């Protein structure tokens, strides 16, 4: 008597694996920061003892001035000549007041002359408090 063994398709319970995969995907979707905080062209200098940006209240009026290593000055990625920078800051001060927070994000390799140009534009608007953005801890 010949026994004919029927071939059955292999099957396994995939529920647990799918659960784990979806958990991982959700984790990455939630934790991925699509928007770069700092322009990739600017490499901030390292200062481990600086006051962490997360500990400070965010002011929506804040102006961020970027200075790249070639000495070019940008606001919101728009290249600006010093005269235009001064007039932008003056206009902002006229609109929002003298206590507008201003952050200079300068490349560590930039010369002080470029940073000085940005600082002069700020002081010309009557603001004497400036913040420098630095890298407290590099992502490993």
């Amino acid at each position, binding site marked *: 008597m010949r026994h004919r063994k029927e071939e059955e398709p292999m099957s396994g319970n*995939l529920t647990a694996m*799918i659960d784990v*995969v*979806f958990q*991982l*995907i959700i984790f*990455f*979707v939630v*934790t*991925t*920061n699509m928007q770069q*905080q*700092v322009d990739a062209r600017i490499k*901030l*200098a*390292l*200062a*481990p*003892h*600086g*006051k*962490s*940006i*997360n500990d*400070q209240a965010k002011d929506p009026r804040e102006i961020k001035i970027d*200075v790249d290593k070639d000495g070019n000055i940008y606001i919101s990625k728009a290249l600006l000549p010093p005269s235009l920078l001064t007039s932008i800051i003056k206009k902002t001060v006229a609109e929002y007041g003298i206590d507008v927070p201003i*952050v200079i994000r*300068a*490349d*560590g*390799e*930039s*010369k*002080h*002359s*470029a*940073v*000085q140009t940005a*600082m002069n534009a*700020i*002081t010309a608007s009557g603001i*004497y*408090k*400036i*913040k*420098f*953005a*630095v*890298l*407290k*801890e*590099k*992502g*490993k």
Partner: protein
Amino acid sequence: MARRSKRTHLVAGELNLTAMIDVAFQLLSFFLMTMKPVDVLALMDVSRPAPDSKAPSKPLNVLTITILPDEKNPFALNDTKISKENLDMMLMKAGELNPDQNVIVACTPKSLHSHLVDALDLCSKAKLTKLSVVSLM
């Protein structure tokens, strides 16, 4: 004619998950490959001294750190060249004696911004908070 009864065989519901698992793994691979740890940023508060016609002619009791264009030894404290380690030590002492000590950081046009940040960081480490940045001609 005898009527044949039709029996329906119920089969457990099956769903082909292959495509979904493929997409899920594609997404997982994408996120694993593109994930980059976020840098922690910090802010350093400084003042830019306002031009004051009523400024006292006598120099105030301030520490002056000069940032020189020298790549290897860029620091000078009260016009004396100093290594980074010694500057750190001096600032720590100054911070212990008087945390309200005024510190002026003077930069030359050719000095590197990273050296200015180094000096500000050492001041921050020494709990010195009254920092001013001036630019030399």
